[in-house]
């Protein structure tokens, strides 16, 4: 898959996972893995970008005597998902067009 497309898909997937509740790095990698292949080193910049864009917030909580970072989706993040879905409707139209009579 084209890298830039994949990047957009990963961002949207991570945001989608966060709509199911706050999560942390390892859990996100495992859950995202079920949909698309993603490694830790791919996830890190995605989280950073989403944080910078205000699509998620980060907080630290104690877990088993150590600190763990949790990620929570923001309204901006939810809007990004909505935008993604709207824009992909256009992509799907093109897809259907290209696919026709092939």
């Amino acid at each position, binding site marked *: 898959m*084209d*890298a*830039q*497309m994949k*990047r*957009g*898909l990963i*961002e*949207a997937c991570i945001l989608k996972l966060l709509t199911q509740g706050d999560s*942390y*790095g*390892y*859990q996100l*990698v495992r859950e995202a893995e079920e949909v698309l*292949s993603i*490694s*830790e*080193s*791919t996830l*890190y*910049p995605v989280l*950073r970008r989403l944080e910078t*864009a205000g699509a998620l917030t980060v907080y630290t909580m104690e877990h*088993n005597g*150590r*600190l*763990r*970072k949790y990620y929570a989706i923001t309204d901006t993040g939810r809007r*990004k998902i909505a*935008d*993604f879905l*709207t*824009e*992909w409707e*256009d*992509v799907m139209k*093109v897809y259907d067009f290209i696919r026709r009579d092939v």
Partner: protein
Amino acid sequence: MTREQFLNELKAALAGLKEEELEGVLAYYAEMIDDRMEAGMTEEAAIKAMEPVSVIAGRVLEEAGVAETREKPRDKGNWQEIRRPAEASKEVRIQAEGKRVRVIAQEDCNEIVLRYCIGSADIFRLHEDESALVLEHKLRPVSSFANEKSPEGFSLDTILNSMGKLLSSLGGRIVSGVSYEAPENEIEVTLPKTYCGELNVSTSNARISLEGLTATQPIKLTTSNARITADDVNCAGQVVCTTSNSRIALGDVNAHALRLITSNGRVELDDVLARDGVEAVNSNGGIKLTDCEIGGALHAATSNGAIELDDSSCGDITLKTSNGVIGGILKGKREEYTVSSSTSNANNLLGNFSGGEKQLRAVTSNAPITLKFAE
């Protein structure tokens, strides 16, 4: 390696990064290791599950580099295009470091076209004679261009990353990706629709894609830490794909034989026809065949991953994994096979029986065997 050593190596590899960034990265990986250990892995296994320090550092530095130079207009770069008659050499060989390689085929074209951009970190050499057209690419040593603060060429997804940044909003603009422009970190190889020479591509830490080609000679694709994809490919010879820590995905491929090797990734074959057998080797990842027709023997071996055969037909079959399900639906009748299968700590629905001419061996552990015959 211990957790401590891993984090120290990572820290060393990220020297030069802003303190705050560095701490963020180290905390992230420390947490990943801790969470894996909490999930039951040993310290060693948790470290092993991490990507190599060089890969992690590459990604992080690349990202940081892009952020620094985002505002600057990007150098147009020094584009090269090399055209040669297709029959001039018996082989096209690309040997790159960290550059993506994309091979495509074009109708009504009888030339080999190589397109690439010479960035500040790139050294290209072209050798050619009757036996081979060889494009060799090397990266200058890291130290010499780290000082220049030029992210180009460092690693190869750099440009795509900056493109991705421009495409901050997702979908709609992706359509523009349809009119493809080669990124600067990519070597694009265009071959005739039917190519009568060998194709041999090797790179590192960057992906290889192959699309739309019919080849009469063997194809060999080798990389590391990145995926290999082949789509709509016909090859009268053997196709060999080797990578690590990533996926090998083949769709609509028709080859004489296939040999696919990776680790910590997945091997996915969809609509693949191989007249003389398939060998798929993986570790810590699954192997999946969907709608495949394997004329010869199928050897699929992995560990800690499932092996699935969906609507696929094969000759002799050997499936070996551990801690993973062996499942799916095999085209053909039960009577055609002599089956020996075993697992531990789980159900074996396949069982053992003899009588058929074809051999089916399936071995796993700690997971069921649910492979069925379509009948």
